[in-house]
C-alpha cells in the first residue's frame, strides 16, 4: 500500500487518533513536547494518509517520497503518524523517550527505521531536504520531498540559505510545510523575534507560497495539490495552526510547548478527545505488529475498497 487515499472523514478520524496517541504517549513518558505535535496533527495526517507515496514495509523502496521533520522536537506526532501508518506497532509509542525503547526524544535514523535523517538541531532540515531533492533529480527519480518546519524555526539563518538554494536549483519537487502556530518556547513568535511577513519573505526568495488552514483537511488537501502542480519553483505551505489544538487548556498557550500532561491532565485531554487514558493505552498495547492501525469501526482501511490505493 504505497499510497493511501483516505477520504476526508477517514483523515479526520485518523487525525483524532493521532492526537489521542500523542496524549497517551506523553502521559506515559512524562517527558516531551505537547503543543507543536498537536498543531501538526491534522496536516501531518493528510501528508501520511493521502499525499505521500510511502511503504513502511519497504523502507528502501526507491519510488518512495521522502519526508523529513526539521522540527525534531515534535517526535510525539512523528511517531504517532509512523505508528498509525504501520512503520512500527503502536505499542512502541509507550516506550517513547525510555532507555529501552527505540523512540528517541528527537528523531534518530539508527534507532527508528523509517527516519531518513536524524534531526533535532533547528534550521538544518530544509537543507537536508534540498540535498535529497537534488540527488533524486540527478538520478531521474520523480519522487517528491516534504520538509516540515516550525514558524519559530524560521529565525534560524540556515533556513534562508536553504531557501535560496532550492529556488536557485528550481527544486519544484520539494515542498516545505510550516506549522504556523505562532508560539515558541519563550512566548509569541512575534514578541520573541518577529518573522512577519513570512509569506512575502518566501515569495521574495523565489518560492511559491500556499496558505492554508492547517487544521482543515480540505484546505490542507488543496494546498498539497497546488504545491504538486506548481512547476519551476519550490513550494512552501504556510499551515495556519493553533498550538495545542484539540485540548482546550493547551490551545494557544506557549507554556505547553515543551511539557507533557500529567495523568490528571491527560485524562481531561483524552475526555475532550472522546476516550479515556485506560481505553486508549489499551488500544496502543494491543497493536503489536506493524500495520496501518484499524479504523474506529474495526476495519483496516488500507485493505478496504481499492486496497487503499489511489486509483
Amino acid at each position, binding site marked *: 500500500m504505497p499510497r493511501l487515499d483516505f477520504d476526508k472523514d477517514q483523515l479526520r478520524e485518523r487525525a483524532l487518533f493521532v492526537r489521542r496517541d500523542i496524549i497517551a504517549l506523553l502521559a506515559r513518558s512524562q517527558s516531551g513536547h505537547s503543543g507543536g505535535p498537536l498543531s501538526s496533527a491534522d496536516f501531518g495526517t493528510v501528508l501520511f494518509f493521502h499525499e505521500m507515496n510511502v511503504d513502511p514495509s519497504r523502507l528502501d523502496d526507491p519510488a518512495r517520497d521522502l519526508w523529513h521533520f526539521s522540527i525534531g522536537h515534535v517526535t510525539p506526532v512523528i511517531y504517532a503518524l509512523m505508528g498509525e501508518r504501520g512503520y512500527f506497532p503502536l505499542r512502541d509509542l509507550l516506550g517513547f523517550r525510555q532507555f529501552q525503547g527505540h523512540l528517541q526524544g528527537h528523531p534518530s535514523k539508527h534507532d527508528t527505521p523509517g527516519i531518513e535523517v536524524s534531526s533535532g538541531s533547528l534550521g538544518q532540515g530544509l537543507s537536508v531536504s534540498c540535498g535529497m531533492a537534488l540527488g533524486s533529480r*540527478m538520478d531521474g527519480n520523480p519522487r517528491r520531498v516534504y520538509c516540515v518546519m516550525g514558524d519559530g524555526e524560521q529565525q534560524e539563518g540556515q533556513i534562508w540559505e536553504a531557501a535560496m538554494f532550492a529556488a536557485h536549483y528550481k527544486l519544484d519537487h520539494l515542498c516545505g510545510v510550516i506549522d504556523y502556530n505562532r508560539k515558541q518556547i519563550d512566548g509569541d513568535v512575534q514578541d520573541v523575534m518577529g518573522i512577519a511577513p513570512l509569506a512575502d519573505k518566501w515569495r521574495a526568495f523565489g518560492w511559491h507560497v500556499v496558505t492554508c488552514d492547517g487544521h482543515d483537511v480540505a484546505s490542507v488537501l488543496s494546498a498539497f495539490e497546488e504545491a504538486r502542480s506548481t512547476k519551476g519553483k519550490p513550494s512552501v505551505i504556510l499551515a495556519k495552526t493553533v498550538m495545542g489544538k484539540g485540548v482546550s487548556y493547551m490551545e494557544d498557550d506557549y507554556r505547553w510547548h515543551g511539557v507533557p500532561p500529567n495523568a490528571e491532565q491527560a485524562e481531561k485531554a483524552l475526555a475532550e478527545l472522546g476516550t479515556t487514558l485506560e481505553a486508549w493505552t489499551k488500544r496502543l498495547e494491543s497493536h503489536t505488529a506493524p500495520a496501518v492501525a484499524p479504523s474506529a469501526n474495526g476495519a483496516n482501511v488500507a485493505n478496504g475498497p481499492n486496497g487503499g490505493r489511489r486509483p
Partner: protein
Amino acid sequence: MSGTAPAAPRPAAAPTLAKPEMKRTREGFGHGLVELGERDPRVVVLVGDLTGSTNVNFFGERFPDRFIQVGIAEQNMMCVAAGLAAVGKIPFLATYGAFASCRSADQMRVTVAYTNLPVKIGGAHGGISVGPDGATHQAMEEIAIVRSIPNMRMIVPCDYWETRKATVAAAGDAHPYYIRFGREPVPVVTDADTPFTIGRANVLREGSDLAILACGVMVYEALVAAAELATRGIEARVLNLHTLKPLDHAAIERAARECGAIVTAEEHQVHGGLGGAVAEVVVSTHPVPMELVAVRDRFGRSGKQEELMAAFGIKSPDVIQAAERVLSRKRAR
C-alpha cells in the same frame, strides 16, 4: 592504496629532504576527486564559492553534472551534502577548514555524524602554513573538533600523493570523513606507490632511541629532524600518523614500548590535537615521556609559511629540541 597489505618501511632518502619536490596537497584532493569521478557515478562534489582555491575545479570541469555550487553558505552545504548522501550519493564538500570545522560544526555533528552519513569533508587551507591570510583563515582546531564527534573519521595527509590517496580511500568507507589539507606547496615525502591504508600508520624511518609521530606537513619536518639527530648518533623512528581517527593504537603502543620516548609534531593547537590523541593511547598502554610540538594555544597571524612555522615553533629545530628534552627525561627514569 587502501586495502593493500602493509609494505616494508620506505625511509625517505636524505637527498630528497635537502631539496624536496614541492607540491600542493589541495591538488592531490582535486586529482583524487577526478579519479573517483571516473570510477564511481555516485561521487558528487559541492563547493562553497572556493572552486579554484580548493582545486575542485578539476572535478567540476570534468563532471559538470555532478558539481554543485552552493555559494557562501557552509551550514547549508554540510546539510545538502547529508541529503545527497541520504539518497545514495557519495558527496565531497570543499571549503576552508576554518569554516568546515567551525562554521558548520553543529551540522557536521547532528545531521552528518549522528545519522552516520558518508559525507566527505574536504577542509582546505588547514594550519598556520596558509600564510598571509592570517588568523581567521588559519584553521588549527580541526583535529580537536572532528575527533571528538562520534562516527567521524579524520585524515591529515602529509603530501600531494597521500592527500590524493586519502581522498580516494575515504570514498570507499561508509563513515563521514574529514580530510585536512593545505594551501601552499609542501615537500613530497611519499610517491604514487607508497602504501596507504586508513587507520594504519606508516613507518618512514626506523629507530629505537625515540619515536617522532607526526601528521600533515610536520611529517617532513620530523624526517628532517630525524636526519639531523642521526648525525648526533640518535636514531629516531618516524611515524606518519595520517589517520587521526581511527588511530593506529598498535603502532603507537609499539613506538612507546620499543623506543621509550615519544615526540609528536602537528600543525595544530596543542589542545586536543595529535599529541593529546597519542597521549591517550600511551598513558593507557605503555607510559613513556612525551613532548608535544604544536601551536601553543594562540591564534595565528599574517606572514610567510616558513617564517610562521618557525615563529610558532613547529619547524624541524623545534622537533630536535623536543627530542633532546624527551631523551633527557627518558635517561632520567
